[in-house]
């Protein structure tokens, strides 16, 4: 019980820090970077649900991120819709497209699935890039509205947008937590560990994999919509494979298949990128080898490293108590 309590306190402390940051610092640039990181974290949670908990590595995630962003952009700029309906519709559109792609993609397994989704991601990118009539091609979409005020709550200042994204992020974390700890989440993990075994104990693997895929595209689409409304300008590059690789790095460094991994990985890499700005486009000289060495030496990332250490210590303590008890028993 005490561990659960301390976990709770740690979580509350982190949330408090996140809430206090805009009040303590007036640096708009950092606030901007932090808000952007929160958006990435949401997308990484989507990817993590599918790759980390269900065992299917999708390389089309930037594509779904792009679909979410473009759905919001097109609905508002070209469709003349106001912000809020478009904001709710964008993830739904992404999810519907994700459902149909998932239906086909999930017929494949392992390497085929990764290659298939890689190609799907590339097709989405090419369509966004080449379909100038709809998406504006390389020129992109300009003038996407930010979130409008909800009644008395104003959402136009930098601080307000930070809190808005933070709220969405906390909701996403809560949702993921509930999903992972539900029967559905356990089915995902069972599929990851051994798909045939999962099937043999009566889990409908196709239904569960599809659910995981659809949920994962929903979070990617949501992150995309948030991104479009936050940056207010989008180009085809946001659906490029490089974004998928970025998300992958965030997930692997933080810890694939862990709940805290996406937050740790994204914040760490974003902060590191800020420190390594002198490297400009060469930052992958550092992050590429980092990705490879983490997957070799600590496959479950930093969060996994901590968990392993924690459980080892706990096991040791337990063993210690047992031997103590045994020696006491021997004396008497």
């Amino acid at each position, binding site marked *: 019980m005490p561990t659960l309590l301390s976990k709770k306190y740690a979580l509350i402390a982190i949330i408090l820090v996140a809430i206090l940051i805009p009040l303590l610092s007036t640096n708009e640039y950092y606030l901007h970077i932090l808000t952007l990181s929160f958006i990435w974290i949401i997308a990484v949670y989507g990817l993590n649900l599918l790759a980390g908990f269900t065992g299917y590595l999708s390389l089309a995630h930037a594509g779904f991120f792009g679909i979410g962003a473009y759905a919001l952009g097109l609905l508002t700029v070209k469709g003349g819709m106001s912000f809020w309906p478009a904001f709710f519709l964008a993830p739904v559109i992404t999810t519907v497209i994700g459902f149909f792609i998932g239906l086909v993609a999930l017929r494949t397994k392992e*390497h085929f699935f990764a290659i298939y989704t890689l190609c799907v991601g590339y097709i989405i990118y090419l369509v966004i890039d080449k379909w100038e009539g709809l998406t504006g091609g390389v020129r992109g979409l300009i003038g996407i509205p930010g979130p409008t005020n909800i009644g008395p709550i104003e959402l136009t200042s930098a601080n307000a947008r930070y809190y808005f994204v933070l709220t969405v992020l906390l909701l996403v974390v809560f949702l993921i937590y509930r999903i992972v700890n539900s029967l559905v989440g356990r089915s995902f993990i069972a599929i990851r560990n051994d798909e045939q075994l999962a099937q043999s104990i009566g889990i409908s693997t196709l239904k569960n994999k599809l659910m995981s895929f659809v949920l994962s595209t929903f979070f990617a689409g949501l992150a995309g919509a948030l991104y479009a409304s936050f940056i207010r300008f989008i180009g085809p590059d946001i659906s490029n494979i490089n974004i998928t690789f970025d998300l992958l790095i965030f997930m692997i460094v933080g810890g694939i298949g862990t709940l805290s991994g996406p937050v740790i990985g994204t914040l760490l890499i974003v902060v590191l990128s800020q420190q390594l700005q002198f490297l400009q486009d060469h930052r992958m000289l550092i992050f*590429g080898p980092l*990705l490879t060495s983490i997957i070799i030496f600590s496959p479950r990332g930093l969060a996994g490293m901590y968990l392993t250490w924690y459980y080892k210590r706990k096991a040791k303590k337990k063993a210690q108590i047992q031997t103590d008890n045994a020696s006491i028993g021997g004396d008497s």
Partner: protein
Amino acid sequence: MELLIQQLFNGLTIGSVYSLVALGLTLVYGILHIPNFAHGALYMVGAYVTLTMMVQGGFHYLLAIVISILVVGLISVLMERVVFHPLRDSTPIQHKVAAIGVLLFLEALAHYIWGADYQQMPTPYGQVVKVFDLTFTMQRILIVVTAIVVMILLYLFLKKTYTGATIIAMSQNREGAYLVGINANKVAMLTFFIAGALAAIGASLTSPINLVFPSMGHLVILKAFVIIIIGGMGSVPGAILGGYILGFSESLGATYLFSDYKDLIAFVLLVIILTVKPQGIFAKGGV
């Protein structure tokens, strides 16, 4: 009619390069069951090394290619030793992620050393050859001939030599190969060397008619994946056949259907194939 023949020849040229790249990918997949996402980066490095040797080193084109083969082959072997060997008992996701890490590193390295600019590779074989009413450049003829010679040599090596047979043996049955005393490390290193060499040859041949830039490997590696899925993962004849199928469909598709979306053809082909047959067309059962 002339247009058709011209396009068929173009398809043959593109297909030859695709086949060379896909062959390396399929060999590696055959023995280690790794989809080597970094293969496209080897292809890109191959082009840059040849270019640098020619422009800065002043070597002849063909000699530059030989140097490139050695350099890329060694990088490839190093990659096997440092990255894939330690991961030999791990999950498929780890292989893929590790390969992506190498890909990102090599691309950033090329970006750092050679810059982001598009570069043109000179060739001593720029002459135009006229056969009846058709015009071919020597370079394109060189691509087709070299590719075919390399493929025949590779085939003879795999089928007729003892060393080549160990590669085949290991791709057919890994445990069986261990049992008869095949040194798995040696075979893995050799295969990676061959794969790197093939990528370097493909890139060096095609660069004079295309351009050299850090992300030039992206499309090629994706297409190579499409090819080995068409041809069956791990199958050598499949990779050659698949390469030419894709080469012809692209050159004909671009001329007669839609030129803007030429690059989409491969992916649409793949999506259709995997939709209908999730295991690939010529997949061997149980692998």
